[in-house]
């Protein structure tokens, strides 16, 4: 299985561990990821807030590049990039928008390059072969709260990802990996997303609610599929604790890292040391030396 890989900006820097762990599980699952050469930023939220055409042209540019890689489609790790690429594909069904984008790009993009989030790719593989066979480490002691956030599942007619109100892909993955799934109420509530920079107070409140609900529902860790969510839940967790006036101390892992752990990869290979909230205590519990 070969995919054109679109890492997105965050995986180049602040989410480097997401990239490392994604590549690690990709090789464990025989997914060949060919990075799209010279890909550029998808524009993220600021682009659609300020320039509609730019917010379509940037993803289209990347998708055209991806076509040249010659694969089954584009694999994306970041939920925000995923959303933007899907939005562009969706918008290309409108001939007027398609025309404008073609004018800007100097070539026609018809919106047909398939875009998949790594979670979808993993779940497709899971449907074909038993991922349990790859599990080496017993995770049955850890309670995991899967956090999906906004941009994977919404708007449903664009992303067409899973049940927008109660998605199950990560829940099922956690089960297959042998850990316990925590049912809680905020798995698709917004973490504050792009307001991270300009409106920290809002992020503290929204992300705080999510972490608190996960914690109160018994979660040892939260897993995410988006660098933006991760930065809000992990990087800002100390600020959130201050804001809420309580200790949360709840490690936030990428789902790829949890998979890697289950498959027996070392914390180093998964970049687990990079989180601000250290997962060490959890690792110890499953018998991993840190």
């Amino acid at each position, binding site marked *: 299985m070969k995919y054109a890989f679109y890492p997105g900006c965050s995986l180049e*820097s602040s989410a480097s561990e997401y990239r490392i762990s994604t590549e690690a599980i990709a090789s464990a699952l025989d997914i060949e990821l060919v990075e799209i050469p010279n890909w550029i930023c998808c524009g993220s939220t600021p*682009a659609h807030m300020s*320039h509609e*055409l730019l917010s379509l*042209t940037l993803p289209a540019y990347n998708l055209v590049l991806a076509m040249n890689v010659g694969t089954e489609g584009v694999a994306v790790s970041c939920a925000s990039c995923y959303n933007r690429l899907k939005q562009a594909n969706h918008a290309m069904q409108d001939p007027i928008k398609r025309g404008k984008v073609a004018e800007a790009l100097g070539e026609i993009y018809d919106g047909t390059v398939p875009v998949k989030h790594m979670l979808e790719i993993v779940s497709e593989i899971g449907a074909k072969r038993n991922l349990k066979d790859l599990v080496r480490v017993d995770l049955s002691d850890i309670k995991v709260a899967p956090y999906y956030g906004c941009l994977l599942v919404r708007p449903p007619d664009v992303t067409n990802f899973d049940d927008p109100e109660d998605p199950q892909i990560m829940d099922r993955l956690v089960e297959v990996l042998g850990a316990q799934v925590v049912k809680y109420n905020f798995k698709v509530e917004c973490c504050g997303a792009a307001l991270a*920079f300009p409106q920290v107070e809002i992020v503290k409140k929204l992300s705080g609610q999510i972490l608190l609900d996960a914690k109160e529902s018994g979660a040892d860790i939260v897993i995410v599929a988006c660098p933006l969510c991760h930065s809000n839940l992990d990087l800002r967790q100390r600020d959130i604790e201050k804001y809420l006036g309580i200790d949360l101390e709840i490690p936030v892992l990428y789902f790829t890292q949890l998979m890697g752990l289950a498959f027996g990869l070392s914390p180093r290979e998964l970049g687990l040391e*990079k989180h601000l909230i250290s997962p060490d205590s959890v690792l110890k519990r499953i018998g991993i030396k840190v």
Partner: protein
Amino acid sequence: MVHNKISSPSFLEEVEAESGEKVRICYQCGKCSAGCPVGYAMDLLPNQVMRLVQLGLKDEVLSCATIWLCASCETCATRCPREIEIVKVMDVLRRRSSAEGYPSAVREVPIFVNSFIGNLKRFGRLYEAAFVGTYNILSGHLTKDFDKVPAMLSKHKLSLLPPRIKGISRIREIIKRVEEIEKK
């Protein structure tokens, strides 16, 4: 409110044309507002924004804080019974507000957006170090998030070198064309 003195009688049509959404069919059920995670911080709830657009009350809506606080989380649009993509409407309002020089009720957000876009134009990809720097200087929050920098550096989560990609001149050209087309 004297309705026949609204600031812009064609405002509704303009917003509808640019967003591609039928704001007029909003029947003010309030489901968007009920679920908006940021609603508690907004000066107008999303349904009120829709209403003001319907009434053509342009000044009120383009100078509100809500359009800048909206996190584009799509919760509202996903549940709107009239299938209105509210974020697309918010996007149009944000753009109009900036373009027409309305003072932003939440000044950090447009600065954030502009810093991001500026950064993107220069490097093609987000150069986080430069971006954070620009944003902090422009917003006046000079030391914002500096407490996170040492840890991020030590964990190799912040790259101090700008990204390098081939064909950056072509990218700049495309962005320029985008801007020209948008002006038309």
